[in-house]
């Protein structure tokens, strides 16, 4: 039993670690603003498919790690991720049965909400960012969502078949 659970946990944890690594890989300055928010995408996928195991608690812990890794205010990404994942879990039943296009549109809204929360917390803390490219990750994240979700469902079914 515990072996089965480990089997199911491992790919999720590994995907979260991989997302964290992708979010700190140095990129050329020109494409840096368009780095998709891998952590948010990964967490949204797992919260949508396995809401019982991965919901706001996981999001909060991962958010704190993101805060430390990026040197932002402690709690900023934690709060934003927590809220986005809360919304995702709340509507996970609808999200699961959506066709891909509609699901992608919802992910766009979630990512925009996420980026807005970060923007808002920055504003309250006195760190203003006026550039339009701030919203780049929302666009690239939405564009890459179909690939991300297909990739993860591939992993999920393979793990289940192995069991």
């Amino acid at each position: 039993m515990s072996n089965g659970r480990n089997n199911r946990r491992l790919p999720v944890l590994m995907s979260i670690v991989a997302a964290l690594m992708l979010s700190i890989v140095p990129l050329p300055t020109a494409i840096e603003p368009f780095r998709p928010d891998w952590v948010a995408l990964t967490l949204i996928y797992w919260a949508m498919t396995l809401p019982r195991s991965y919901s706001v608690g996981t999001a909060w812990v991962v958010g704190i790690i993101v805060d430390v890794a990026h040197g932002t205010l402690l709690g900023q990404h934690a709060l934003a991720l927590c809220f986005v994942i809360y919304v995702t879990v709340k509507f996970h039943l609808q999200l699961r049965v959506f066709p891909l296009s509609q699901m992608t549109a919802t992910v766009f809204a979630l990512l925009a909400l996420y980026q807005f929360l970060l923007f808002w917390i920055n504003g309250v803390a006195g760190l203003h960012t006026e550039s339009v490219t701030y919203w780049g990750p929302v666009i690239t994240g939405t564009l890459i969502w179909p690939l991300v979700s297909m990739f993860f469902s591939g992993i999920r079914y393979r793990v289940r078949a192995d069991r």
Partner: protein
Amino acid sequence: MAAVKSDNQHRAPNASALGFRFLLLAGLSILLLVIDNRENYLDGVRKAIGASVHPLRVLVDAPISTWRWIVDTTTSRNELRLENSRLQAERLLTQARLQKYAALEAENARLRALLEATPHGSERIRVSEIMSVSANPFRHVIVVDKGSRDGVFDGQAMVDASGVVGQVIEVGLLSSQGILISDPDHALPVEVNRNGLRTIAVGSGDFARLELPFLPNNADIKEGDLLVTSGLGGAFPAGYPVAVVDSVTRVPQEPFAAVTAKPAAALNQVREVMLIWPTEPKNTAVDATVDTAVDNKDDAARDDAREIAPAAAETSDE
């Protein structure tokens, strides 16, 4: 298939419990945010979590360092010889310059002693490698591979071969974060090398531009002026080059001139930065300063002699 499987994993979590947990965690985040924004009690927490992120950074850095290692080990002998001779020539040049500098330093210390002014402190420098560059384009933060174990401290100055890079803002055990001078939140007290005009250089969010917003229209500044650290902020030692003024726009009806400068250090290209530890100047006795200066010179001379001796032996063999 997922929906059919009625295993615990796929049942919806209890809605009210979820809401409660969310409110609890949101409250906790807001508390953390407020504390972190106002005070620095949370440095210990950051350090602990930072230590757990360290392996991730090492892993991310691994392909790049492996690539560098491969390039290093496969350079041809010819290239190495060329590089070696180039470095030899460079070393000779810098040594010649350093000799003059040592004499000037001693003279400066002596003259300052005569004037009974506080002598300038000297600095200890250590090279550290950059592990990652800020993930957020609006916050220019780098992570370097030295931490509190190596004696790095908060506010420590970071320079590269050509100028000031930034300062340390957060120290972890094995790595620390530094803010670049181009970060929009960074301001640095500088002076114009030509005439000692003091002002503040503020980051613009662009790696290749600093702004000098507090210069009146009649300030004596022009394109090509070198800005150096004035040492007034306390964080940076005085006299390191910061930037070169590249545009001065004076609009008569505006109270301040719009001045921008180009950082001397290649902020988005550096792989290594040097951390500076200032050593307290000895201002107890006039003689002590002069003595140490002379001692240092003697030591240097002895070192040189030692280095020259084997070289001479080799040439006589040939």
